[in-house]
């Protein structure tokens, strides 16, 4: 709860703290849902359609390196794509603030148009352009997904800062860079972090889609390959691994969010 730091609330014991924590609730959720899945899958008894978690775990135990090596490739694509796409999106969002209105308008229309092309079509084109080999084309697709998830909201948030807060800086005769640094960026950060989480999920999707279209390694490739040979458990294994990578990324972002916009979480009573 967001307690005013001046009036600390009664500290609960360590067990209660743990039970109320985010980790504990995730553990509870995982246990319940995985347990239900296990029971359901065993009762249904059609492993080709719905393998039980234990069977997926067995698949992992059979050849752990398979999912780990492919997973590592995809993780690299996701991370590189996410970082690249987000950075470019943030830079573009800032650049759009200084461009003449006409240019800004033009670019925005371009962004919206690109955004309405089905991503899958774009992704298959990128593979054609950048090639099947290596991770380049997959990084590009993940970056593209992340870029579009972030650029619009980041720009809007920085463009629509409070007029009165701008006037305060105007009265100090501030430069544009100072307005960006002291006002636009910090006031947009809460929205930027929310969009970054979306961008992370988009990068995961982008990397997998890229691999489905053209790759000889990675989780997307593993999913295709396993499906051809009819190994549904291995498809699930790849998907589960993917989920873990996504969670990891979200976790890192949540930590950064707490560090950089803790004030906002507290102010809006989300902390």
């Amino acid at each position, binding site marked *: 709860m967001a307690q*005013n*730091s*001046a009036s600390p609330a009664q500290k609960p014991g360590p067990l209660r703290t743990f039970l109320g924590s985010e980790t504990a609730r995730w553990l509870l959720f995982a246990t319940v849902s995985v347990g239900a899945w296990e029971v359901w899958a065993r009762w249904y008894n059609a492993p080709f359609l719905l393998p039980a978690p234990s069977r997926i775990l067995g698949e992992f135990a059979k050849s752990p390196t398979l999912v780990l090596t492919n997973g590592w490739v995809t993780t690299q694509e996701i991370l590189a794509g996410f970082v690249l796409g987000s950075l470019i999106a943030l830079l573009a969002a800032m650049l759009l603030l200084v461009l003449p209105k006409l240019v800004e308008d033009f670019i925005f229309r371009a962004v919206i148009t690109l955004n309405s092309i089905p991503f899958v079509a774009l992704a298959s084109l990128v593979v054609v352009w950048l090639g099947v080999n290596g991770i380049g084309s997959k990084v590009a697709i993940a970056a593209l997904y992340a870029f579009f998830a972030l650029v619009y909201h980041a720009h809007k948030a920085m463009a629509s800062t*409070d007029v*009165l*807060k701008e*006037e*305060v*800086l*105007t*009265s*100090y*005769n*501030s430069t544009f860079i*100072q307005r960006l640094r*002291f*006002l636009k960026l*910090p*006031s947009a*950060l809460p929205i930027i972090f929310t969009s970054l989480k979306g961008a992370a999920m988009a990068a995961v999707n982008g990397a997998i889609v890229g691999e489905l279209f053209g790759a000889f390694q990675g989780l997307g490739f593993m999913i295709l390959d396993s499906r051809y040979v009819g190994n549904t458990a291995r498809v699930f294994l790849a998907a589960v691994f993917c989920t873990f990578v996504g969670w990891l990324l979200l976790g890192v972002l949540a930590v950064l969010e707490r560090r950089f*916009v803790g*004030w*906002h979480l*507290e*102010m809006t009573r989300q902390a």
Partner: protein
Amino acid sequence: MSNASATHPNPERSSQPLVSVRDVSMVFNTGGAQTIALQNASLEVAAGEFISLIGPSGCGKTTLLRLLADLIQPTSGSIRIGGKTPEEARKSRAYGYVFQAPVLYEWRTVLANVMLPLEVMNFPAAERKQRAEKMLALVGLEKFAKHYPWQLSGGMQQRVSIARALSFDPQLLFMDEPFGALDEITRENLNLELLRLWRETGKTVIFVTHSIPEAVFLSTRVVVMTPRPGKIETIIPADLPQPRNFETRETPRFFEVATAVRESLRKGHGFEVVE
């Protein structure tokens, strides 16, 4: 601006006014309708003066300050601040502005908010902190340096914004109802603090208030304004002896000046002057 360090400013003596407003009008166009926020306003303020603007809501007090601060530009007329245009004055960081609303940055602590102008103006880091702490102490908020603005009451937020405007020690101060949200005792205290600061530093203050006693107590002159269209009705000298203190409010002259201000205000409101 003959002598900025004078402890007893004498407005009559300086030849060139610090602030000069000549025939300034401000018309706002909003959705077809026109609002004359200010009509043919003229005012000269000598260096070291303490001027209060008083008048009913909507008579153009904030508009006048925003014009002086170059946050808006007049429809007609001319403004000079120390011989410069408002834009040049703003660019040379000639004034500090206490806005009518506190307008603090909610991602900055109270201390960091007070340091904001100092960061923009590239003061050395050590000096920033030292100045900000001093200003917080002045407004009685040194214990709240690490709080965030949204953890403070409205009156406390307003005091932070006063500290912020004072932090870089501008010679000219625009204050828009700075003490409006304060309790009577805090207000009286800050009145005295402000007067002390004004006396010791020779600052020039243009101050908006809705309180007649406050205007008379603080000012060298009181500017009474009337609404629709916004006009300067009269300028009343508050020729009470300096330095002012608690006894000032008990003197017959204080009541005479206050009465003059009140009658002028009543005229603006369209009420009969009571004999």
